[in-house]
């Protein structure tokens, strides 16, 4: 295998795939990056078997002749030293040439040799048995992930599926849902069956880690991607990149059901003002041993936000429009801030259903983005 590549082009491809290389693996081959050179493209792959990536650069991607494929072949290069060295190489063209288990890398006056592994046993990234499930906008999917992923469980021994996000197609709606047991974030978008190529409803639990990588790699323009799915794996395919992932097993809570609650108090409030009031509350509340607890006292024209710890106490009044009952309720401030942070409208619409019921947050005027946060029960001493 022998090829020539511009250093910056090489680096940008490397930075996409190196995040998928496991730092430790019982299979030492997996701590490397696999290169395949064919007549018209070069591909970079990495995987830890749970998730993986294959990224291609084709000859047509370079306007000048910064890519030259001299001799096709494949090899696995050790990732750590390789990535580090690549960043330190001189600008311009880098030449890679493999023979007898050593790769020779030269750039300008620089020359080094490293060992490489045989690529024959490197697992294939793309699985042929998967079927296309959805074609959708990269940019919009990225937003949907961003607006939900924070609500997933970081770690859950008893319910591991909650470390993932539910990506579900029901009729003409694409739903992305994350929950950790105390809160839930749900984002939905209408889809057009024809252009989205959806043949049937599907429901996948995709690891949060995969989706974070997906949102990192997806573009901001009007490119689309295709989701391929099988029984226990799924793939996100774009023009040049495939991201593959194991799926999580288990059931998700019925998000439509739990977010339907009887409203007892309804509040419309400016997002930025309630956000900064809670933010100030958290700054004090996280200092004490009260676990981020902030209290809301909701009356006709104000929400009074208060926090109290061994250190001190604070109180803030935020004007609002209220319908229904007055309410005294407490929350983990962090949960509310995460939810408010994901909302982009100027005003936010809050629905409460009593002191031990949830707070449902929606961007004013929209129904396609729902945040659900459960309260902390107040004890008599907290009143």
């Amino acid at each position, binding site marked *: 295998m022998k090829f020539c590549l511009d250093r910056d082009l090489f680096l940008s491809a490397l930075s996409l795939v190196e995040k998928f290389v496991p730092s430790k693996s019982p299979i030492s081959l997996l701590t490397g990056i696999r290169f395949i050179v064919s007549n018209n493209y070069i591909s970079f792959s990495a995987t830890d078997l749970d998730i993986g990536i294959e990224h291609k650069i084709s000859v047509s991607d370079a306007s000048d002749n910064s890519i030259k494929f001299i001799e096709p072949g494949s090899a696995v290069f050790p990732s750590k030293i390789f990535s580090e060295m690549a960043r330190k190489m001189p600008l311009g063209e880098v030449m890679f040439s493999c023979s007898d288990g050593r790769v020779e890398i030269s750039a300008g006056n620089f020359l080094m040799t490293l060992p490489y592994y045989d690529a024959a046993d490197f697992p294939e990234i793309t699985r042929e048995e998967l079927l296309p499930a959805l074609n959708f906008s990269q940019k919009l999917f990225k937003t949907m992930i961003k607006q939900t992923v924070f609500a997933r469980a970081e*770690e859950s021994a008893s319910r591991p599926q909650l470390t993932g996000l539910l990506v579900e197609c029901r009729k003409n709606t694409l739903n992305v849902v994350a929950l950790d047991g105390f809160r839930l974030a749900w984002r939905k978008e209408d889809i057009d069956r024809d252009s989205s190529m959806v043949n049937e409803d599907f429901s996948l639990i995709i690891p949060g880690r995969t989706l974070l990588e997906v949102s990192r790699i997806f573009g901001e323009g009007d490119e689309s991607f295709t989701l391929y799915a099988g029984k226990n794996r799924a793939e996100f395919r774009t023009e040049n990149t495939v991201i593959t992932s194991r799926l999580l097993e288990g059931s998700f809570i019925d998000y439509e059901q739990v977010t339907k609650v009887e409203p007892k108090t309804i509040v419309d409030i400016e997002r930025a003002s309630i956000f900064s009031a809670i933010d100030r509350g958290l700054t004090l509340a996280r200092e004490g*041993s*009260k*676990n981020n607890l902030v209290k809301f006292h909701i009356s006709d024209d104000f929400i009074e936000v208060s926090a109290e710890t061994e250190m001190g106490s604070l109180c803030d009044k935020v004007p609002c429009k209220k319908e229904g009952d007055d309410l005294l309720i407490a929350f*983990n401030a962090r949960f509310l801030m995460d939810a408010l942070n994901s909302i982009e409208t100027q005003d936010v619409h809050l629905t409460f259903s009593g002191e031990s019921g949830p707070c449902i947050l929606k961007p004013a005027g929209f129904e396609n983005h729902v945040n659900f946060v459960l*309260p902390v*029960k107040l004890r008599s001493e907290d009143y």
Partner: protein
Amino acid sequence: MLPIIHVDMNAFYASCHQAQDHTLKGRPVLVAGDPQKRNGIILTASYEARRFGVKTAMPNWQAKRLCPHAIFIKPDYDLYVRTSSRVMDILGRFTPLVEVFSIDEAWLDVTGCEGLFGDSVTIAQKIQKAIQQELDLPCSVGVSCNKLLAKMASDMKKPMGLTVLAPEDVPQMLWPLPVDELFGVGHRMAERLREMNITTIGDLARVPEELLQQAFGLNGRYLHLAANGIDDSPVDPHSMDSAKSMGHSTTLPRDVTSFEEAEMVLLSLSEQVGRRVRRENYMGRTVTLTLRDASFGTITRSVTIPYTCATDDIYAAALKLLHAHWDGKTPLRLLGVSLSQLIKEFEQVSLFKEDEKKNKLNQVVDEIKDRFGDGAIFRAKLLKDEDLNERKLGKTGNNAPALRGIR
């Protein structure tokens, strides 16, 4: 100015029994797990037994060989806890600044008490005398300018010692001691120091601080200061109430060599930790498992979980650690479980009904234990091992009739 006093009860467990039963006075008493069995170990040896070479953690059979006429006694933890709080009450008469360090050790800061009781050495004598006369218990007392030196001093003469260690005496009194006697230097650190050719505290004091920091990181600075007798930590009477962690550990009455046994001990420890955490209205999110093997190699391993005070969650995390870090064969001498990163308890409403059920269950079990004793209700898993039951469930006398029936 030497205002800090350290009180260290001598052979505390054994002394408690001797004070309670005068026929044991002057005789070699060994408090040992499972005295009936050959493979139990010595928890505490009275000074009379120590003269024969009996040491803590020695197997029973070896102690018996060294001191054939020794009297073996089963541990009675209720007695020790009761006696300990009476000792602490005595200390509290001299100053409110008493920091309880363990069941048989405490520091006092007697700054400003001179007018009432005399200088610190006089106070130390009065403390020793009061504990001797009122409770019939021996203790060693150290007097110095800080907690570290006071503790080192109380260790120098046992039993019934009273040692004054002024900072200017550090070179003569502290430096000749072997380095593993320095407070905070464990078995393994001592080994590493010996590899660096540091065998006495004096050797350690002369090593440049930078070198120690290179070798031991943050501990390096501590080592440097400690070897030079420097310590500015205050005597904190509240060190126990604003707890950063709560844990229980147990020296096993005999070596544990199977997962089944270890799991039972772990469950009972988890239950004790959970109950204590719940009683003090805390929740925590780091579970730490301590394992000590027969050669006294000790490891601690931690895992972070969502905030909890439920026995089940603590046990599940400890169990996972046990299986990840123990082979199920190496004989275990000690097991410990603790919960840290504690915060005041709060009740976050959950989407899952099981979570609330779990909390209610713990509440009910705690209430039953509070009213009817620890033995009134317990996990069925703990029924299996009769040997361990006694220790886990506390004194038989407290147990509900139901349990005695089962037995």
